[in-house]
């Protein structure tokens, strides 16, 4: 029965993970100016919300714009360099739902393998302990670096990148910690019940 629940959870969560990569929280496609929500952003100036566009369609539209505006070479050069800058700098989107759901799906798959006796208990526990330790080390180190940056007022182009990866590893760490609670549920209960 437990296996059926795990399989059902994987089936239910997979579309969420896939759909969540589409950036728009309302699932809008090619949302025109001024947009239907307060998150409207237009970095490539095509009057369509970037969140409602897939990266490929955004670049296609941009290429079309560049071809159409042949007499505005300087402007188009500027916009393409802006786009390159945007690609190199992490966005404000931290992929909270996709990263969290993907980690949960991977856990459920390994849990299913464990229930099916295809994965030894020791290995199953080790995998998730290592995931937790690795994500903790990376979150902790990036966090400490950011504290030092803030405390000493160090400004560099890496600040946003470190912030982005701190958030990504922290999401994995938070999910792994909840998984850790699930794996060690009995000892955890003992902490409070004695």
């Amino acid at each position, binding site marked *: 029965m437990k296996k059926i629940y795990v399989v059902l959870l994987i089936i239910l969560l997979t579309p969420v993970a896939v759909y969540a990569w589409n950036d728009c*929280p309302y699932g809008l496609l090619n949302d025109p100016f001024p947009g239907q929500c307060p*998150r409207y952003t237009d970095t490539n100036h095509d009057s369509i919300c970037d969140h409602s566009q897939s990266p490929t369609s955004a670049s296609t539209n941009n290429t079309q714009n560049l071809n159409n505006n042949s007499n505005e070479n300087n402007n188009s050069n500027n916009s393409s360099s802006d786009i390159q800058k945007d690609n190199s700098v992490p966005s404000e*989107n*931290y992929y909270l739902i996709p990263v969290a759901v993907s980690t949960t799906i991977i856990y459920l798959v390994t849990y299913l393998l464990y229930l099916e006796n295809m994965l030894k208990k020791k290995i199953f526990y080790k995998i998730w302990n290592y995931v937790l330790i690795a994500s*903790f080390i990376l979150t902790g180190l990036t966090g400490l670096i950011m504290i030092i940056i803030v405390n000493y007022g160090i400004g560099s182009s890496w600040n946003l990148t470190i912030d982005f990866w701190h958030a990504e590893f922290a999401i994995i760490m*938070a999910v792994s910690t909840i998984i850790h609670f*699930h794996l060690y549920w009995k000892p955890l209960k003992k*902490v409070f019940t004695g």
Partner: protein
Amino acid sequence: MTYDLITISIPLILTYCASYILYRKNHIKRSLHIRLWNILILITFLVSAGAGLTLISLVEYGIALPISQTLLYWHIEFGIAMFWIAIFHIHSYWKYPQKQDPKESSSKKEPSNKKSAGNKGRKVN
């Protein structure tokens, strides 16, 4: 705004050392030493991760609240504490032999009787 990296780290390290020495000298039980730090790691995790996830959600949806800065401050302060307590947690369980349930040896013979990970698969009925 600066964050209290040193003023949080040093007292925590000293407290852990004191607790560890007390346990090693048999003044307190290992279970008490472990329980104390397990409760602390749980509290710091709940505050730090809760504030962090709230902040990420606010940023993702472009919401700026007046409490965001306070939230960030406490996320970092509790995060510093959690960082050290997590290291203590790893130290506490590093190569520490886990209690082996006598029934578990029978589970190795009969893997089909294995219980869920939520129950740690220790007890076999």
